[in-house]
């Protein structure tokens, strides 16, 4: 059986796809990739279906030993990965945002992510793991999905669907994907009337800092407190529980916003002042403790249009993929860019 074996675990690495839908009514959170754009691009680079599961790397990734004739992987995100050919071989730097052909016995060291909390690794043909309730997304709190329902640990062998890499060129992004820079777009509601006008103005007029309490469930922000319309003592921070969509921003009695993300519970009893527009959820999924954001209101229609525009940009990025290194030849562009003395000659991939 072909596999990628975890020889050293990262911090919080889980298999995720685009989410487990259809079971929220039974209390089952959707889970799924925190940055769906990066997972989509990683799968597209390999020719995988958009809904294939990839490895979501949290802060620091694992070392993976190739236990297959060969495997083609895609790495997406601000990584500085290295490849180790054998026990005494020095690590060789690899580029990110592209695919790589790996051989049996090589170790891929994914390493730290720089300036983001998540990055992705996908494999050509996908992982040979059973889906749970229609999805491979790991939901660790219930121990389901992905690899044994948990984050990866040393010794785990991730089974691969293919014995060897499919023939073809390696590919890379034409340019880094632009996630946007300005404020995080939000739509007011569902319970904006539970807050005073002054409270709402504070919320959209202040910087909020990502606290240390940030994970796949959500991000607790620090900053100016948001005033509830009815005092907390009189129940102003309680509602009769209702459904929680992705990016819902709940404000409990303490007055600080919590943005709820992939592993959020399905229903909750705190008022939600606003909801992050889906276009900006991948940015939330990349935030690190200490980073600050501002929130800017848009209408539902504007948010829908922003999301459709982002989808067009994803499609353009996919159409714009470049061949990374021609097999069996000399990659002249890379030669000139990096290394004029030795050159870089790549062998033919096994067919």
């Amino acid at each position: 059986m072909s596999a990628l074996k975890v020889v050293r675990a990262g911090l919080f690495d889980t298999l995720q796809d685009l989410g487990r839908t259809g079971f929220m009514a039974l209390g089952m959170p959707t889970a799924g990739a925190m940055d769906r754009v990066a997972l989509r691009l990683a799968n597209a680079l390999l020719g995988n279906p958009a809904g294939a599961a990839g490895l979501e790397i949290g802060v620091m990734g694992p070392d993976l030993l190739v236990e297959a004739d060969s495997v083609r992987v895609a790495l997406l995100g601000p990584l500085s990965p290295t490849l180790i050919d054998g026990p005494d071989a020095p690590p060789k730097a690899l580029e990110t945002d592209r695919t790589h052909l790996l051989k049996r016995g090589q170790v891929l060291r994914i390493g730290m992510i720089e300036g983001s909390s998540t990055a992705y690794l996908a494999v050509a043909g996908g992982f040979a793991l059973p889906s749970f309730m229609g999805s491979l997304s790991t939901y660790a709190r219930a121990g389901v999905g992905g690899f044994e329902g948990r984050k990866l640990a040393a010794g785990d062998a991730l089974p691969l669907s293919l014995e060897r890499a499919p023939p073809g060129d390696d590919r890379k992004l034409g340019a880094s994907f632009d996630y946007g820079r300005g404020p995080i777009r939000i739509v007011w509601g569902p319970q904006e009337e539970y807050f005073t006008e002054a409270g709402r103005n504070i919320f959209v007029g202040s910087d909020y800092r990502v606290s240390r309490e940030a994970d796949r469930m959500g991000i607790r922000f620090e900053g100016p407190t948001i005033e509830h319309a009815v005092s907390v003592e009189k129940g102003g921070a309680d509602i009769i529980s209702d459904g929680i969509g992705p990016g819902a921003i709940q404000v409990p009695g303490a007055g600080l916003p919590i943005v709820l993300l992939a592993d959020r519970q399905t229903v909750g009893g705190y008022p939600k002042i606003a909801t992050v527009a889906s276009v900006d959820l991948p940015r939330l999924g990349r935030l690190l403790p200490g980073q600050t954001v501002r929130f800017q209101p848009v209408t539902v229609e504007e948010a829908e249009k922003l999301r459709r525009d982002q989808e067009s940009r994803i499609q353009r990025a996919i159409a714009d993929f470049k061949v990374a290194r021609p097999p069996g030849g000399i990659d002249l562009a890379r030669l000139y860019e990096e290394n004029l003395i030795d050159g870089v000659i790549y062998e033919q991939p096994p067919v």
Partner: protein
Amino acid sequence: MSVRYLSCGDTAFTVEFGNEISPEINARVMALHAAIGRAKAAGELAGVVETVPTMRSLMVAYDPLAASRADLQPRIDALIARGLPAGLASRRVTLPCCYDDPEFAPDLSEIAKRTKKTVEQVIAAHLASAFKVYVLGFMPGLAYVAGLDQTLYLPRRSEPRVRVPRSTVAIAMDMTTIYPFESPGGWHLIGRTPLWMFDKRREQPVFLAPGDSLSFQRIDRKTFDRIAREVDAGTFDWSKLVTA
């Protein structure tokens, strides 16, 4: 009775039938949940991903690349205008519960003291309650089940427990629940069922569903142990718990 549409960004909206807990409001929530499910099965309402019923509202999740709020809201309005059936057919579910072991029911005597009943009267009142599953949430398979006999109403414990074992049956306010996982909890522990409310080995890992009518059947420790062995081995016949 008019509804309010609340925005949940560009991937969901909530249809709110009222801002109070009442069986009539919840019946309308469940009827719309079922009506949307039927429409989706018939290939209508393209772009609707799923719906999430709660006591008084229904969240409709949609894919903004396949539908828009402006398309969907009038169609939901039309479904409501067409009339929502009042009494939805619901499953009748009976769960075995062992009240006898002090390890299973550490709060029974305190509940009895606070409700001025004997322990046997507390158990009888729990068995006589006409329960209904209103919402699942907070944890997969955790059901909020209302309809507790009024003489058993108690607020939550002032000191929540750090660890409540899986499958514990508990009460608080006008509700009962069954813990699907070991977890912290502030409810009063009244018994334990040998069944798992979340069993990832089963094709339908969550047994209860919103709308279920629910009652408990008293079992002794010996029966508990026998059923627990069957559940553990995966040989238990769950279908016999459902009578309609």
